[in-house]
């Protein structure tokens, strides 16, 4: 059997998200339309124009992270260590029983250990260099999560870290599939984010794309005529990807059958954005026709021109209203490095249970958005194939095609 014919299947999911910790808590919140967005509690947001965000409720790092590692790592890595443990347990995988060089870790990071970094800069400038933590160098940098998961589970294969902002969660799963095809048995992948600290929020404000709403139910309205930007969130998902030939078939959520990445032309170019052709490339990679796709998990930034461009790309590929579309991240906010990985987790649960979750908050589609956005309540129907779309700040564009077992 040639290497390239190996199939990558997702066998385990670990969710740490504003919608809940654990797969069941998250999925129940999604189906119930219960939002994880609320007033920021991690610091006093009253002096900032954005005061709402999706925070992970009740996360206790002492439950998720070995005691010794807590001061050595940022909250973003705490989430990932907890989620990785949960994903491995969900997959029923014992890493000590797999060949060490055939296990790899590839995670997405959008901005590294933002809060840890702010704390250490504060200590440096309030005091002197000797106050900076010995762990700053390995807590702040973007590779911290991958390194810590690799060490914790003895995974000595080809590890990686991709930074493509919100598209990262799909890009790392594309790389996970590459590694499975090249001979790895298990790849721990996905991403998390935790940049809800004063400096992190301030940096996000500079895009001008965040919503200033104080109404948690109306703050983030993908594709809505009244869309006013998105809200930030924290958390994400870690998944285990395995070679179908050696994975436990009873644990499979589905296969990664297609993936593509593209990039928008430079500002001012007359060329079209990358999204439409990226979806087409992913479908071609999967050997699927648009008519065979049962649901699209959209990026849905709720920035009017981005929503319109995305709706037009989806319509161009699938036909106007040609496929059910949903944006469950309306319940969590955008999770940056964790966002697309959580969308993949949600899409796999959707395929498993035959239900498209609805997009909460959106009431009336913006003019020109000719898509079948699932609203008001979940839509039950047999599902086989899902497309997940993600875009990252600056022009990153990725699409992943999933198929249920």
């Amino acid at each position, binding site marked *: 059997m040639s290497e390239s014919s190996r199939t990558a299947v997702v066998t385990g999911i670990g969710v740490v998200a504003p919608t809940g910790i654990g797969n069941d808590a998250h999925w129940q919140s999604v189906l119930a339309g219960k939002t994880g967005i609320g007033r920021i509690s991690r610091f006093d947001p009253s002096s900032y124009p954005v005061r709402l965000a999706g925070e992970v409720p009740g996360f206790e790092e002492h439950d998720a992270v070995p005691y010794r590692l807590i001061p*050595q790592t940022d909250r973003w890595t705490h989430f990932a260590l907890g989620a990785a443990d949960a994903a491995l347990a969900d997959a029923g995988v014992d890493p000590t029983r797999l060949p060490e060089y055939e296990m790899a870790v590839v995670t997405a990071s959008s901005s590294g250990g933002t809060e840890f970094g702010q704390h250490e800069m*504060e200590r440096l400038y309030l005091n002197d*260099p000797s106050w900076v933590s010995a762990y700053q160098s390995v807590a702040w940098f973007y590779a911290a999560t991958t390194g810590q998961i690799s060490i914790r589970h003895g995974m*000595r294969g080809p*590890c990686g870290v991709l930074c493509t902002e919100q598209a990262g969660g799909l*890009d790392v799963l594309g790389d996970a599939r590459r590694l499975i095809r090249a001979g790895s048995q298990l790849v721990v992948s996905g991403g998390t984010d935790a940049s809800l600290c004063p400096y992190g929020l301030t940096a996000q404000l500079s895009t001008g794309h965040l919503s200033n709403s104080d109404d948690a139910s109306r703050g983030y309205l993908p594709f809505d005529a009244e869309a006013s930007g998105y809200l930030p969130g924290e958390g994400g998902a870690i998944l285990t990807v395995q070679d179908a030939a050696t994975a436990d078939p009873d644990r499979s959520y589905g296969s990664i059958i297609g993936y593509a990445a593209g990039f928008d*032309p430079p500002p001012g170019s007359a060329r079209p954005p990358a999204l439409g052709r990226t979806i087409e490339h992913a479908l071609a990679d999967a050997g699927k026709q648009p008519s065979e796709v049962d649901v699209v998990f959209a990026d849905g930034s709720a920035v009017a021109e981005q929503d319109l461009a995305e709706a037009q790309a989806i319509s161009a590929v699938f036909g106007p209203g040609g496929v059910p579309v949903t944006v469950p991240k309306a319940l969590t906010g955008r999770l940056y490095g964790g966002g697309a990985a959580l969308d993949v987790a949600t899409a796999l649960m959707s395929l498993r249970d035959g239900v498209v979750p609805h997009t909460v908050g959106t009431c009336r589609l913006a003019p020109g958005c000719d898509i079948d956005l699932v609203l008001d309540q979940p839509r039950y129907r047999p599902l086989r194939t899902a497309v997940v779309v993600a875009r990252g700040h600056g022009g990153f564009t990725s699409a992943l095609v999933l198929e249920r077992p």
Partner: protein
Amino acid sequence: MNDRRVVITGIGVVAPGAIGKEPYWDLLTSGRTATRSITQFEAGAFRSRIAAEIDFDGTAAGLSHQEVRRMDRAGQFAVVCVREALADSGLELGGIDPGRIGVSLGSAVGCTTSLEDEYRVLSDSGKRWLVDHSYGVPHLYGHMVPSTLAVEVAWSVAAEGPVALVSTGCTSGLDAVMRGAQLILEGTADVMFAGATDAPLSPITSACFDAIRATSSNNSDPEHASRPFDAQRDGFVLGEGSSVMVLEERTAALARGAQIYAEISGAASRSNAYHMTGLKPDGREMAEAITAALTAAELDPSVVDYINAHGSGTQQNDRHETAAFKRALGQRAYDVPVSSIKSMIGHSLGAIGSLEVAACALALERQVVPPTANLHNKDPECDLDYVPLTAREHSMDVILTVGSGFGGFQSAIVLGRAGSTRR
């Protein structure tokens, strides 16, 4: 069977002591060092006050005022490199589908320097935890996400194919080149701009490495502070820089009559799963990465002609990789020259891997091994031929370059001489 192969056809360099490919090669083969006392910030309070700095003026290097204002120093380095690499390659991008052109850029710490500068502004010089958002520059988010560096490179060549920022600490540069080559090999892209950039010289970075005593404190003799494999070494010297290269599918490059510096014959990475900063003395996982890279290149260890070492100048690293070379190459490790260009241009974290690949490509083309500067008394535990002090003419078909970094990552790339029939 896929018969695609990947070659390097253009090189751009911004390095300490050398802006541009030719000045870079001159520096490396002269054995001069570009390490000095830090001038980019007031370093008096730090344990290590040495760095390999670049005298860089973005405007003089061809960037517009808008680009200089918008981009972190690391982004400026990378865009200057891309423009040199593209011109060097002679490639006309106009004839290529932009969707087949991609970017694989490495960086360990992204736009750290700008993030720190802006933090000082927003926090009243660091006095406030709740920062004043109203003082934020319009592109602050671009500094927070390192992916911006890849965005700038993509814009500069209008790439619309796969674009990513690879950030695996100090192996970022090798891993980014590896990923760029992989995308061409598998047929996802035809042209990749691959390399890395880092501009980490700032108070917070220096404080990080002071705290773990990783950097040299030989402050009284900065020109000779980076001493890989020398018994008197006392840590690495922080540097900055970038290299970006044009990677092409070999058949297409030959068809257009391109100059080919080298072929990327094989690459692999492994992790030690041991410690975020520590290394075991046995070099086991680096040896495994070397073996896997040679296997991918379908080459026997006995044909390696030169090893470009990680050679950071910490005792732990130098012994670790010496053991790895012996483990992976056996007797051959004693017969081939091994050198560390970090002795001259310091350790620019994620960027250095790309600068080392560029050095190897030039070494293959010109059949000269760059030396290890400042190597006067070998560490008795390091008993290979480290090419001390002066460059050496040497016949080479196959070069191995390796990297090792925080997180436990170990990477290896095998480069082949252009025109060699050997894969």
